[in-house]
């Protein structure tokens, strides 16, 4: 187990290093220099380059860059708000993004679970078909389609919830974005729960438990559900990816002042420094979560651990 965890951690570290290298190379390729202000003369420009360490050899710059990134110094924004440290820009936005994302996962997991269980217990009935249709639509239709539809119907037409995010009503204005982001989570969990539950319900140990005379509730909760739920973490990875991409557009649609809309703004206003810094944060978060998921897999299903150690 120790060997497995160590191996995962080392891989994650090298992945993060590789990402930093790619980001650094891309930053060198970005058109234009951060100091292409015409009012600057050559001497001023040289002193600015010296101040930010841009006059040093490229290898030194890279190590400096890696060192700064890992230390939490992400540089300053050049365009969106001049000379503001990017960490400061992000600090207020990250909690909002995480809040909406967390709410989406919770709503999605809960409804998905109920839907999956309903479909499994009422297999081959109209409920099952309904749940399957909902989950197919949820998996295939992108979250911003839901976001636009919900925002039009409940925000614009019915005016139940605000169309745009407002700091005064954080909970109310998070409802629609969270629901639209939760669709994919809900659909995948419903699909997965149904498949697992049907398999577990048909297994021999369920037959044994049933023939021992266990009551219905005990049968479902302590025998079937427990075993069906363990593999649910295998669907976590795609969910995380979807949440991250979905949040970029959904935040833009509802003008949520989160990290996603900051990234979109930075892309649109060519603020490369912010784009690179946010890419680093997204990658670090993604790699971190993947690492946790991978280790959880190993703990729960030793077969995976053995297979990966055997490589």
């Amino acid at each position, binding site marked *: 187990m120790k060997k497995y965890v160590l191996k995962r951690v080392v891989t*994650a570290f090298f992945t993060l290093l590789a990402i930093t290298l790619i980001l650094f190379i*891309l930053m060198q390729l970005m058109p234009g220099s951060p100091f292409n202000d015409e009012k600057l003369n050559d001497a001023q420009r040289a002193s600015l380059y010296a101040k930010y360490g841009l006059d040093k050899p490229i290898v030194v710059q890279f190590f400096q860059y890696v060192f700064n990134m890992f230390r939490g110094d992400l540089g300053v924004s050049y365009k969106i708000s001049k000379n503001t440290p990017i960490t400061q820009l992000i600090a207020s936005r990250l909690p909002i993004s995480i809040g909406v994302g967390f709410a989406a996962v919770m709503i999605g997991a809960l409804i998905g679970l109920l839907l999956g269980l309903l479909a499994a217990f009422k297999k081959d009935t109209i409920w099952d078909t309904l749940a399957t249709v909902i989950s*197919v639509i949820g998996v295939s239709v992108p979250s911003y389609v839901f976001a636009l539809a919900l925002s*039009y119907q409940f925000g614009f037409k019915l005016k139940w919830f605000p169309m745009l995010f407002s700091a005064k009503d954080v909970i109310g204005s998070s409802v629609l974005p969270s629901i639209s982001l939760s669709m994919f989570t809900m659909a995948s969990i419903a*699909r997965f729960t149904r498949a697992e539950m049907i398999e577990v319900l048909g297994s021999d140990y369920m037959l044994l438990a049933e023939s021992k005379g266990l009551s219905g509730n005990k049968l479902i909760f302590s025998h079937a559900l427990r075993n069906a739920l363990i593999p649910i973490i295998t669907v976590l990875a795609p969910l995380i990816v979807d949440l*991250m991409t979905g949040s970029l557009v959904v935040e833009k649609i509802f003008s949520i002042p989160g990290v996603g809309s900051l990234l979109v703004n930075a892309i649109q206003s060519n603020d490369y420094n912010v784009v690179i810094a946010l890419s680093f944060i997204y990658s670090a978060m993604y790699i971190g979560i993947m690492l946790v998921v991978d280790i959880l897999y190993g703990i729960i299903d030793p077969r995976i651990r053995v297979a990966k150690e055997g490589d």
Partner: protein
Amino acid sequence: MAETIAAVKEPYVPTEADFRLKNNTEDILVDSNFASQSFWKEVVARFKKKKSAVFGLIFVLIITFFAFVGPVMNDYTYSGQDLAKKNLAPRIPLIEYTGFFDGHENISTTSGTKTINLYFENKLADTFYWFGSDNFGRDIWTRTWSGAQVSLIIAVAAAIIDMIIGMSYGLISGYFGGKVDMVMQRILEIANGIPRLVIVTLLLLVFKPGMLTIIVALMLTEWVGMSRIARAEMLKLKEQEFVLASRTLGAGSMHIIFSEVLPNIIGPIITQVMFSIPTAIFTEAFLSFVGLGIPVPRCSLGSLISEGFNSFTTHPYQIIPPIVVMALLMLSFNLVADGLREALDPKLKEM
């Protein structure tokens, strides 16, 4: 406790009422007699049995048909602007007499909602925009279908190219094994750890967006999954007799990989390609929304949605056609892929 002792003394005899039927008739297999038929015939038969897959295939075909025929069905072009005829609601000849698609639209003002028909107000009795016209007076029908065409071309091209790259990578890694496999898998693990969207976004920032750069960027997102599948299949097959036979006859590695093993794993590969098409459509739409999509005057479904978004509360008809086409396209491709997966691999458990 007392009950147990009593039970020992006098054994309990279960009665009929203690038993319940398990109702597992559907699990009991009934033997049926199949005439031998070719693999593809069987696949088609199994595919046809799945209604949702057939439904998906029909929609994919309809949308593809319109994507190529739709833009030439009327006289408008996808980039032709006419500012005198901007923001007109959908109006279709003949159907207009039913009250739908007659060019009326509801405008909400401070004093309430009022219905107007710009076609009559602007004296355009002979003008018909089937899906309406946008902010620059461009025909939304033509733009939707030519956008669908661009999205489809990008998605299919990206899916096919990443199939070729991912498949070759996986097959080679699986076939040679040992050190080659070790190095190739480490590289893959690192590539897999990088959030794809970040890389696609950054690549498009550096290399200015165009059809080709978008295809190249999308290609980079899906090859990892493809190569995993190819490698797993290769590991299953490479120890089999037909590979040994071929090697004994003196076949080279490349011949074994691409002419012996490849034809045997075509099923999972096709399924994976079908799954990666909707992903590519989605990613392209996302890029357009962020402003890194197909440059104007060309349009894709994504860029149409992002244009329509700017006025979707005042003129909702402008965003509905591209969004419906895209949702249907992604849904249908997923349904077809699901059906194909089951049709190509009957051993797979029902999901």
